[in-house]
């Protein structure tokens, strides 16, 4: 029985380890995964090719190691980030959920079989992520670093050291996230767990990105051995695993050996926590899910939303806000875009954090200006993408049946919803930050510019959005939306950089430049609004991508492959 059940469950769990619909709802998954694999492969290829320069470095093997140090650390940190993000994305797949219980509990399948199949699927996924990050670099770096050492065994030892380190680093990040998640599921009541689970997922997502982008650079192996850096290194796992790699390849200074030991201890602890929580989840939580009552009414109404605009705008805003807050799929995608914005902002803040920036953080020339504009742009871009993703296609009929207003009013409501959901939270956050950090007159000037930018960008992004938010699907082949958005984002960063430079000059100027900038933005806002309204006015109707299900599907077999003239 086990031999027949295990492969079926393993395959099933592996294919839904990461909820692929999060990334491409009904989209072309194979194409999207191919694009993602190609992206990781391209990075690995570029990093791998950079190893060739080590062949031309003159000096002892230790000097060459010092040259390779930053890139090996980058690869370890990236592997940990990717496996950590994978664990965050597979949040609901790693542990048993109500779907597993409903489908598998009535069948004659042992919990043991389900557990082992899930572990095997997790292991396979981890191996794939680690291999994707190091596909090229995992061959070139170890072989070249081994080549410069004496002995024919050295390249092979280096290769083994590299892959053991990467597997250990990946396993540590995966087990760390799973362990944290599992403990939460065990210690909290099921209802409370379901409430805080989403918050923890997003917090871990931002936490992983922040650690990756904000961790300090170290000059070389000697800096690792420096007692002054001990307290910092105690909290940076990527350096523990770098020490492990150096130890396995025989290049670790003895004074830094404690870091390699810390890697082993950390891995052991993370693994034990994850294993215990998974065992408990499968042998305890499954029963808890079954015993959970079908319906426990919420006693309270929750937060009362303030009224916003007319009834249509209010309905659409509430529908959108509730969908983003309650749908894991939409929340994760929006967090992904905000995370990219945050990552770019943090990368700017890194130089400041380690005192390499030319100006203090609250100076007009500091990174705050760029960060606020970048976050605004990525918030609007993310909102635009998630608004095009459906929440429940088959429930859209209610919008069709209750359509008692004209198309333009629906589009206007949809566009103002994008602006409200994406611009207002970023603007409010920026207002608090700038009013606290900058002189109030400069802060107000920038906030005015930021508000106008938000309106313009929301209008630009809303062009072509002829839908009610969350009611349309992007169909097979349309998974390119994230690729298009990525290309758009790159152009956006370049434009933002130029714009921030212009704004910086005007803020430092005598005021006339600032006035000109405001006038320019106002003209741009009017142009963007007119352009969108003109496009909307030409629309015959709102767009609903989905076609109502046909009651009869004609196979047209009688045509025998020939087209029939109508």
């Amino acid at each position, binding site marked *: 029985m086990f031999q027949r059940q295990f492969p079926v469950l393993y395959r099933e769990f592996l294919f839904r380890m990461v909820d692929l619909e999060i990334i491409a709802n009904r989209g072309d998954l194979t194409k999207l995964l191919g694009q993602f694999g190609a992206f990781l492969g391209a990075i690995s290829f570029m990093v791998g090719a950079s190893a060739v320069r080590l062949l031309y470095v003159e000096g002892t093997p230790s000097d060459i190691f010092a040259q390779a140090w930053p890139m090996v650390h980058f690869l370890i940190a990236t592997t940990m980030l990717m496996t950590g993000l994978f664990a965050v994305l597979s949040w609901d797949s790693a542990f048993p959920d109500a779907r597993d219980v409903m489908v598998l509990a009535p069948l004659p399948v042992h919990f043991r079989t389900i557990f082992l199949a899930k572990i095997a699927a997790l292991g396979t996924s981890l191996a794939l992520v680690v291999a994707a990050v190091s596909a090229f670099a995992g061959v070139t770096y170890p072989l070249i670093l081994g080549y410069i050492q004496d002995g024919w065994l050295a390249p092979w030892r280096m290769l083994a050291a590299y892959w053991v380190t990467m597997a250990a680093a990946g396993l540590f990040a995966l087990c760390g996230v799973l362990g944290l998640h599992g403990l939460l599921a065990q210690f909290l009541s099921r209802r409370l767990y379901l409430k805080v689970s989403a918050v923890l997922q997003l917090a871990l997502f931002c936490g992983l990105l922040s650690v990756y982008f904000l961790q300090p650079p170290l000059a070389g192996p000697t800096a690792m051995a420096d007692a002054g850096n001990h307290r910092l290194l105690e909290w940076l796992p990527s350096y523990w695993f770098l020490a492990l790699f150096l130890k396995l390849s025989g290049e670790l200074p003895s004074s830094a050996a404690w870091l390699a030991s810390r890697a082993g201890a950390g891995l052991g602890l993370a693994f034990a926590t994850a294993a215990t929580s998974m065992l408990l989840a499968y042998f305890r939580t499954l029963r808890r899910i079954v015993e959970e009552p079908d319906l426990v*009414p*919420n006693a309270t109404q*929750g937060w009362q939303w303030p009224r916003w605009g007319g009834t249509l705008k209010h*309905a659409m805003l*509430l529908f959108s806000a509730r969908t983003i807050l309650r749908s894991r799929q939409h929340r994760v995608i929006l967090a992904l875009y905000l995370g990219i914005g945050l990552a770019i902002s943090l990368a700017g803040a890194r130089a400041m954090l380690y005192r390499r920036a030319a100006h203090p953080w609250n100076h007009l020339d500091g990174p705050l200006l760029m960060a606020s504009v970048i976050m605004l742009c990525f918030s609007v871009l993310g909102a635009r993408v998630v608004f095009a993703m459906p929440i429940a296609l*088959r*429930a859209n009929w209610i919008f069709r*049946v209750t359509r008692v207003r*004209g198309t333009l009013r629906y589009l206007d409501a949809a566009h103002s919803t994008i602006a409200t959901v994406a611009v207002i939270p970023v603007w409010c956050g920026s207002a608090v930050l700038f009013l606290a950090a900058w002189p109030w007159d400069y802060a107000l000037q920038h906030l005015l510019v930021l508000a106008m930018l938000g309106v313009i960008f929301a209008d630009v992004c809303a062009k072509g959005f002829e839908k009610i938010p969350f009611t349309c699907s992007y169909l097979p082949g349309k998974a390119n939306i994230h690729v298009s958005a990525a290309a758009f984002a790159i152009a956006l960063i370049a434009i933002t950089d130029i714009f921030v430079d212009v704004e910086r000059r005007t803020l430092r100027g005598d005021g006339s430049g600032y006035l000109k900038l405001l006038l320019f933005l106002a003209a741009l806002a009017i142009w963007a609004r007119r352009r969108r309204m003109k496009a909307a006015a030409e629309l015959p109707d709102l767009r609903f991508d989905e076609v109502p299900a046909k*009651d009869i599907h004609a196979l047209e077999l009688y045509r025998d492959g020939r087209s029939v003239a109508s």
Partner: protein
Amino acid sequence: MLELRGVTKLYTSIAAVDQVSFSAPPGEVTGYLGPNGSGKSTTMKMITGLIEPTAGEILFRGQPISRDWMAYKRILGYVPEEPHLYTHLTGAEYLDMVSQLRDLPVALAAERIEGLLRLFGLAGDRHSAISSYSKGMRQKILLAAALLHNPELILLDEPFSGLDVGSALVLRNLIQELAARGKVVLFSSHELETVERVCSRVVILHRGKVVADDSIARLRTLMSAPTLEGIFSQLAIEQDTTAVAREIADLIQA
């Protein structure tokens, strides 16, 4: 009065609904019956405007419904066959959204939502997500959403689906009460016993065509059948139901 004149819906070259004509007068409950795949739900969707007929005309109060969609939808209440809802919203939130989409005054909508939730026995679960609702509770939300704006034309596609006995009895009386107050009610169901109790007249559809359109009493006389089930069996069921049941039992035992 709702009137269908020669309504046809073709999917490629196959007619799901073929030259269907009937009328549903106000003050009466008109039953719309037929076996699976006979075209009932397609007709319902054409009357709601969700799909367009290939040919024919649908009129309400003598006017084609396509002349002014907005005005028509203001007076239309529809309960679909399947309870497709936005399950991430709570029952109260869903009804609130529907009231706003229908542009109902805020105070009036709040009062009606409150009352409907109480009368349908959902007041205690109003702040729970619809995803946690049972099938019957979802059906009640659909009914509440369809009645919220006091519609003049009410289309009910399998409205008893999932309802418990008590709720089904309330709904049965409600349908008759609404018709008595001058609403046009078109009611589609597979529960022939309920149809027989609720409807004054029935339209029976078979393979997309109307095969009977009359009062139940007259059909009983015409078909020499004591029940609606007997009439339906003669007009719309082609297989020997007893023999098929026996065959299934034989198959799983083999």
